[in-house]
């Protein structure tokens, strides 16, 4: 084959290839068949405005970037669910912005593409934005078209051009922090520092991907004056509550990074948006650990020009956080007032609000005192609210902040203890207030309001609404004692009738509340389009038409309160909500999240209890109630289902309720909660307060549960009840008992009937089994018969064989005898032979002595004749015997064969 040496090499290669092909073909049924990944295809449709580089051509993508001012890169993996979900959103944005922004999608997974080789992403999709050469700015917000569009627009125009006073007002009145730069454009085409400012705005988007800090630029001198910016190139950070700041360019270098950092550090968080990104995060943990938080869920559209609800919330927040009253009012409001009157109409109550704000110069400074046991008042009341009031106008010092002074409270406490005699004993359900003068200052007096707080079983009862809202209303200024029933006059947040007329009275009380109360709230906003799940988990109804919801979450106290969902989330309700939370003895009640979806137990054996029905089913019911606390996810609970169903089927339903509550879906008041699941409690009839817990260290079985019930349930009702009973009532009871007995008997009959039917069924089953087994038996018997028959034939056979065997044995014995005879004969012959030999020898000797005696010769002849006659007969017999033995062996062989057969 390889005659020409120069071709040898090539031939070897060809051969190798051929071999490989053959191998591959032959291996196609072997184990290591693999298939490379599928060739990528279009991810976006060809009609889409998005350029789809599905082979990961990153170099081409970079090339494309030069054509457009703003470019959005969408790095995706074709298998990624999130990319697929985001695709639609990106297309939506692209269709709206395609004339201004270039949208490029790059498959960054395809392992032969450039993108995969150069970039190393841990998740998909990744969105990068470039503003000319600046970038990449990664978008990390929600994968929702409106949010993406908003962000792209921010990258397109990072700076807002503020050309008029009204625009400035809009900019400043926004709840989110704003940074303003003032640059004069008349001097040069681009004033110094402008570019840096522009870059810092872009830079901020890198870190602050939610875009909370807005950047604006003022070009007009007159407008700049409004915010007291004089020099071109100054940067101003606007703050609502605290003083606004000017960028300290002499301390820090004027760079984009620094400006951005400065703004981030000094920004004021009036209200924060919470936008969990979906991955593992401690966002809520970190925010809620700071203290109680008001979470406001509102549907939000980032693209909308205005959001009236958000404006209202901003106002509430401003009021709430606005502590420093002596300070000049907000620049924004200031401007608004001096501006054209149409601004006043936008905020109709701005003026009145301001005047109210100024009129209030005194702030009660209050402290809660829990009375120690030795105190005389503690017999009747155990908690007092102590307030320091200062007389209007004549303050000893103008400088003091109207916050609580520790010394003042201390002094008040002292005098309060001294003044204890001024209190009288009163019924515990009232609040008692008393005013007394301070020892040290003639301008202030103290107020003390005492009441009893009793946290017990009864707190579930609605009748005990010990709530009050407004202490100032409760006492008169003349040092008189004022007794007041809390329930009658204090509006409750859930009570709309009260709440509406009080609106104007209470409207101002929220001002600066955040500094006065020791339960300061942090305010947060959540977009209910994206995060309604949290609202649901806090108790918002799933079917809510308007997705607005407000809740106060107190992580430390492990409680939360919600704003009644029947109320609209508007300014007044929010203010009331905050106020009710802030005051001591808050009228807000811990919200218990309950499962509202009614799911019946299909076979109606076990009663499903929820938060709403707990009271009715468990506490008010006239039956013994066995309540199982469970959660669907708890493996130990779910495997008890069948035991409870069985138990419930045993117990009479007219005296017993077997119930269960899913505590992961249904909150209960603390006193009814358990910390482990499953827990089984028995609420005995007539003694619902004395619930008994099934001991944890006993296994949950039907007999154990029955014993438990037997032990604790059926104790008779207390004797005192019966003593107070007249004969009539005794009779009645007896009748009732009898009725119960009859119904019970009826039930038992029914049960017996069902049992009978069950027995019938089992009987049928058994009968079927029996007939089956009978058939089996018959079959077996038949088999037995056949077996017996077989056995008989076998027996016959063996008998037959035995007879043959015996015959053979006999023959053998005969043969043995014959042999014996033969042996004897031969022995005789031998003997004779020996004798003959002796004779022969003696004859020979005699022959030698012939001459001696002739008589001897005669006798010898006679003897030899005898010998020749006997010898042949002996040999004949021998021959005969040999033949016989041959036959014998043949017979025995035959018999052996028979046996083996």
């Amino acid at each position, binding site marked *: 084959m390889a005659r020409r040496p120069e071709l040898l090499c090539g031939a070897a290669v060809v051969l190798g290839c051929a071999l490989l092909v053959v191998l591959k073909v032959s291996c196609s049924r072997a184990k290591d068949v*693999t298939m490379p990944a599928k060739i990528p295809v279009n991810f976006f449709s060809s009609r889409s405005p998005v350029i789809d580089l599905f082979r990961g051509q990153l170099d081409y993508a970079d090339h494309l970037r030069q054509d457009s001012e703003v470019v959005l890169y969408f790095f995706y993996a074709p298998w990624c669910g999130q990319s697929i979900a985001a695709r639609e959103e990106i297309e939506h944005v692209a269709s709206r912005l395609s004339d201004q922004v270039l949208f490029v999608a790059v498959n960054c997974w395809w392992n032969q593409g450039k993108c995969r080789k150069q970039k190393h992403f841990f998740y998909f999709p990744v969105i990068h934005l470039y503003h000319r050469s600046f970038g990449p700015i990664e978008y990390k917000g929600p994968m929702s*078209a409106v949010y993406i569009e908003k962000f792209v627009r921010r990258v397109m125009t990072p700076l807002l051009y503020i050309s008029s006073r009204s625009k400035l007002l809009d900019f400043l009145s926004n709840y989110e922090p704003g940074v303003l730069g003032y640059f004069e454009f008349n001097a040069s085409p681009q004033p110094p520092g402008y570019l840096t400012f522009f870059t810092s705005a872009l830079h901020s988007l890198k870190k602050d991907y939610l875009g909370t800090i807005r950047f604006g630029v003022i070009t007009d001198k007159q407008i700049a004056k409004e915010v007291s910016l004089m020099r071109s190139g100054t940067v101003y950070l606007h703050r609502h509550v605290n003083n606004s700041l000017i960028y300290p360019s002499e301390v820090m270098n004027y760079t984009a990074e620094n400006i951005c950092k400065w703004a981030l550090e000094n920004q004021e968080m009036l209200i924060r948006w919470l936008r969990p990104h979906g991955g593992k995060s401690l966002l809520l943990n970190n925010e809620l650990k700071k203290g109680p938080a008001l979470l406001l869920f509102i549907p939000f559209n980032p693209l909308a020009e205005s959001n009236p609800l958000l404006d209202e919330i901003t106002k509430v927040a401003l009021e709430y956080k606005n502590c420093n009253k002596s300070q000049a009012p907000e620049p924004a409001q200031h401007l608004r007032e001096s501006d054209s009157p149409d601004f006043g109409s936008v905020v109709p109550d701005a003026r009145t609000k301001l005047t109210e704000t100024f009129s209030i110069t005194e702030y009660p400074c209050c402290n809660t005192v829990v009375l120690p046991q030795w105190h005389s008042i503690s017999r009747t009341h155990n908690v007092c609210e102590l307030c320091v009031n200062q007389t209007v106008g004549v303050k000893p010092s103008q400088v003091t902040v109207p916050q609580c002074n520790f010394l003042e409270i201390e002094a008040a406490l002292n005098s309060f203890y001294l003044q204890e005699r001024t209190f009288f004993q009163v019924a515990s359900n009232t609040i008692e207030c008393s005013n007394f003068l301070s020892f040290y200052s003639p301008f202030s007096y103290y107020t003390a309001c005492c009441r009893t707080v009793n946290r017990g079983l009864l707190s579930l009862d609605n009748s005990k609404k010990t709530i009050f809202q407004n202490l100032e209303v409760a006492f008169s200024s003349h040092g008189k004692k004022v007794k007041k029933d809390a329930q009658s006059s204090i509006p409750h947040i859930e009570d709309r009738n009260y709440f509406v007329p009080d609106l104007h009275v209470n409207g101002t009380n929220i001002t600066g509340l955040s500094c006065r109360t020791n339960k300061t709230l942090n305010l947060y906003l959540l977009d209910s389009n994206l995060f*309604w799940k949290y609202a649901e988990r806090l108790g918002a109804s799933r079917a809510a038409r308007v997705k607005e919801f407000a809740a106060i979450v107190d992580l430390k106290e492990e409680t939360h309160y919600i704003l009644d969902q029947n109320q609209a989330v508007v300014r007044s309700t929010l203010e009331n909500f905050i106020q009710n939370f802030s005051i001591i003895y808050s009228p807000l009640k811990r919200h218990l999240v309950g499962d509202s979806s009614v799911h019946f137990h299909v076979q109606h054996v076990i009663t*499903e209890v929820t938060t709403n029905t707990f009271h009715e089913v468990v506490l008010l019911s006239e039956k013994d109630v066995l309540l199982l606390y469970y959660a669907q*996810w*708890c493996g130990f609970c779910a495997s008890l289902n069948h035991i409870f*169903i069985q138990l419930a089927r045993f117990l009479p339903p007219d005296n017993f309720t077997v119930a269960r509550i899913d505590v992961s879906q249904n909150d209960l008041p603390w006193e009814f909660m358990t910390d482990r699941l499953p827990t089984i409690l028995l609420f005995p009839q007539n003694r619902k307060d004395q619930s008994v817990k099934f001991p944890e260290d006993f296994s949950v079985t039907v*007999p154990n549960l029955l014993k438990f019930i037997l032990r604790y349930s059926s104790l008779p009702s207390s004797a005192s009840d019966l003593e107070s009973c007249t004969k009539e009532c005794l009779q009645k009871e007896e009748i009732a008992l009898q009725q119960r007995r009859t119904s019970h008997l009826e039930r038992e009959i029914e049960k017996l009937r069902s049992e009978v039917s069950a027995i019938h069924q089992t009987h049928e089953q058994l009968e079927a089994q029996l007939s089956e087994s009978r058939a089996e038996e018959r079959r077996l018997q038949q088999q037995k018969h056949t077996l017996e028959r077989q056995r008989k034939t076998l027996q016959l056979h063996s008998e037959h064989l035995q007879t043959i065997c015996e015959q053979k044995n006999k023959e053998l014995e005969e043969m043995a005898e014959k042999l014996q005879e033969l042996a004897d004969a031969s022995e005789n012959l031998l003997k004779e032979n020996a004798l003959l030999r002796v004779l022969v020898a003696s004859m020979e000797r005699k022959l030698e002595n012939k001459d001696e005696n002739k008589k001897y010769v005669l006798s010898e002849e006679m003897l030899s004749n005898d010998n020749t006659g006997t010898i042949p007969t002996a040999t004949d017999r021998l021959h005969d015997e040999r033949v016989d033995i041959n036959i014998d062996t043949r017979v025995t062989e035959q018999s052996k064969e028979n046996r083996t057969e």
Partner: protein
Amino acid sequence: MLRSLYPLLCLYVLHVPGRPPQGANRGEVVAGAAAHEVDAALYRERVRAMFYHAYDNYLAHAFPYDELRPLTCDGQDTWGSFSLTLIDALDTLLILGNVSEFQRVVDVLQEGVDFDIDVNASVFETNIRVVGGLLSAHLLSKKAGTEVEPGWPCSGPLLRMAEEAARKLLPAFQTPTGMPFGTVNLLHGVNPGETPVTCTAGIGTFIVEFATLSHLTGDPVFEDAARKALKALWKNRSDIGLVGNHIDVVTAKWVAQDAGIGAGVDSYFEYLVKGAILLQDEELMSMFLEYNKAIKNYTKFDDWYLWVQMYKGTVTMPIFQSLEAYWPGLQSLIGDIDNAMRTFLNYYTVWKQFGGLPEFYNIPQGYTVEKREGYPLRPELIESAMYLYRATQDPTLLELGRDAVESIERISKVECGFATIKDLRDHRLDNRMESFFLAETVKYLYLLFDADNFMHNDGSTFNIVLTPYGECVLDAGGYIFNTEAHPIDPAALHCCKKQKEERWEIEDLMREFYSLKRNKKLTLKRTTDKSEGESQKPSVDTSSEDGRIKTNLKNNTKRKISPLSCPNQPFNSKLEVMGQVFLDNT
């Protein structure tokens, strides 16, 4: 017909992005801003289509072999020779609601499968796949409408098959320690030269199936063998409370001393918990709780679980294995949901990086480990998602389900089924479709998207079955999935064993119950005369309490928390959804 559904769905999915963008007006935009909740019903149907694509191809090309080879469109025997994929997929058929096919397969199996074959089979795999599969099919057969023989669930043809298969495995347990060999010949028992080294999971993964068998058939030999093996492992744990990876079953010496929760150990821990739930067994649970403590102490770092030396507790491998992803699901069963969620979110990031979980993932490097880049379509992460979704209803978990469906369909779907991913870095495919894909992956995916499936029954429906021993409450939920996702109804175990024992006791108690009613009326009359007698009564009762309520528990401490319980969820669990986690309040 169902198969034809798939292209339709596909068309629909493809059609969505092509929808003409509309809505310059505000209302439309707001609608666009709404969160993208995963459409569970849509994905459920896609999972169904996935199942039939794989199942039909198995029947067409691979039956009666064990597994389908999707690239070459043929079959091969892998773990024995008993049509493994068919046995494994049997209960998935029923969960998908295909009753007729279930019945057909039951008939096929009864005729076709023979365990008297000269095959060396893995004891572990045969147990979880074959015995487990047959047991669950047996217990579900009534639900599937097949004619069951009287005495069901305590007898039946599938149960007898399971028993036969399990008996073939019993010779492996004949070792000095009671820990089984890894391999057994189904015809001849343990081969003479068999290696005595078995992985920990291969020793401790029997209690669910074997206890079920023992309870149903009444023969305690299975449960005893499984318990003996478990106890031997427990006895041989290290001083710091960890178990290694492989052990010599003859000498009880640890051969591989890496301790972790993943490959080689995984289902041992799983079965301690599931066995405890199934049998209401405190001993198993306290074993697990002890291990759990040691695992938390030594192997847990930042919600990852690493591999450590079992005696010293030093980290040996900082890797995450795809088999470890069952752990969050297990934690959710015992109520440790916040930890479970945190770990789950860690694992989910790995999925997002590759579109699957590599067998080994190096945590510090954030990449796959050499030669362990494959993803054989394992179910563990999806399993955890299903359990956690039951507990939290967190939409993030549905997102994982969505990602899993998209990934598997786009990466591993081939003409003849779904192929194992050989290398997650470039998504090369291997010529194999393991039987757990149909038994577990598809089942858990389907259950994740099908909230109303009877498998999620919370006890609101049940069936009454009349057996010759009395009536039994069955199908009341609380199904325990074995490690191959074959559900076992705990009520059935109770029905066949405890029911008989308890029956007469209950009868007596009920009689007492009724007579006490009458007594009550008597005492009622008496207590009107003397009210003091009543106050004494409770004290008398407490003294006789131990006598009255008999218990088989051994613990002496009275105020101890029962290990068979879950903690109630803390307040902040209300907000622990969509990726949010909370640190402990300490």
